[in-house]
């Protein structure tokens, strides 16, 4: 069975060929953010964990959704818990249950503050 990592190299090569681009074309299009030698290693599976910022450059260049490449790379997957576009900065790790509580708490303080602002008016 193939894994996301094995698929990524084939997927990226396929995207480049569909766009009728050479390795050097991609290097130019990304303003050297993705060098031709780096992309070659990526497409041949010699590099298996490219940085997300490289994948974002490639998604932009190939005109595909960034999340598609992130999913194939195994960096994103179907969600177990909803995050609502919120990034938490904690002094220690937090559990999924704590994240859910934090989101509820955030909604609660928003609605409380909104109510008090409306009352002031």
């Amino acid at each position, binding site marked *: 069975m193939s894994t996301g990592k094995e698929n990524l190299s084939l997927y990226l090569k396929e995207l480049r060929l569909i766009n009728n681009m050479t390795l050097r074309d991609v290097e130019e299009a990304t303003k050297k953010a993705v060098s031709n030698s780096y992309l070659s290693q990526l497409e041949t599976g010699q590099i298996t964990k490219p940085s997300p910022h490289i994948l974002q450059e490639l998604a932009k260049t190939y005109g595909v959704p960034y*999340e598609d490449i992130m999913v194939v790379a195994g960096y*994103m997957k179907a969600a*177990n818990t909803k995050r609502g*576009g*919120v990034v938490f*900065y904690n*002094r*220690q790790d937090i559990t999924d249950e704590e994240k859910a509580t934090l989101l*509820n708490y955030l909604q*609660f303080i928003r609605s409380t503050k909104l109510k008090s602002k409306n009352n002031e008016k």
Partner: protein
Amino acid sequence: MKNDDSSLLPDQLDNIKSHVQKLLYKADALGELPTPVDQLVRSANLHVNEDFVLVNDYKMIRNFTSRIEKVARPSIHGIKKLLGLLHVPSGEILIDHLQHKNKKTFIKLHEAGHGFLPHQRLVYEIMEDGELELDPDIEELFEHEANNFASEALFQLDKYEKMAADYTISIKTPIDLSKKFGSSVYASTRRYVQTHFSPLALGIYNKIEDVSLAPWFCFTTSSYAFSDFS
């Protein structure tokens, strides 16, 4: 020893530095000391909501817990652990206002990193509908990137390193420089040791009151062979 919270591959660090430089230019703040943090936050199209105390508003937490206790006993430990957060779609930053002024500066810049780095902002926008989530390793990488973003912005890329080179090697140097850069002594000392041209090593014994954190931090210049103090 405390887990590493900032290591990046060279290409990842270069990418962070180039985005910090873009933001410093955009905010017309390149070389300005201390870094005008609020100006940077605004230039990143973000804003700090000063209305929310967030963490230490105990009345609010009590109201919250009493309201949802009827449904399920909530775990409020997560709230107590929170230093700040960024709601990416609205660009709103909330921070724990009871933190020290210099710590708040770092938190704002850390959150600005999440909101300004395009490959991160897009991911968090995608995650808003709740269908996809990040792999934990990538989530950790994004935290490292945000820490580096904050440090590079606070210390104005290589400006700190250049200034430090003109001072005598001493623990007093990062303390003096922290005042110029508006950083905490901790952040300044860490930066000093990690970027100095001479091989330096620093061990920091963490405050004992927070028993859940391991006590040792160790930072070295790249030329210093890493030693495991654990």
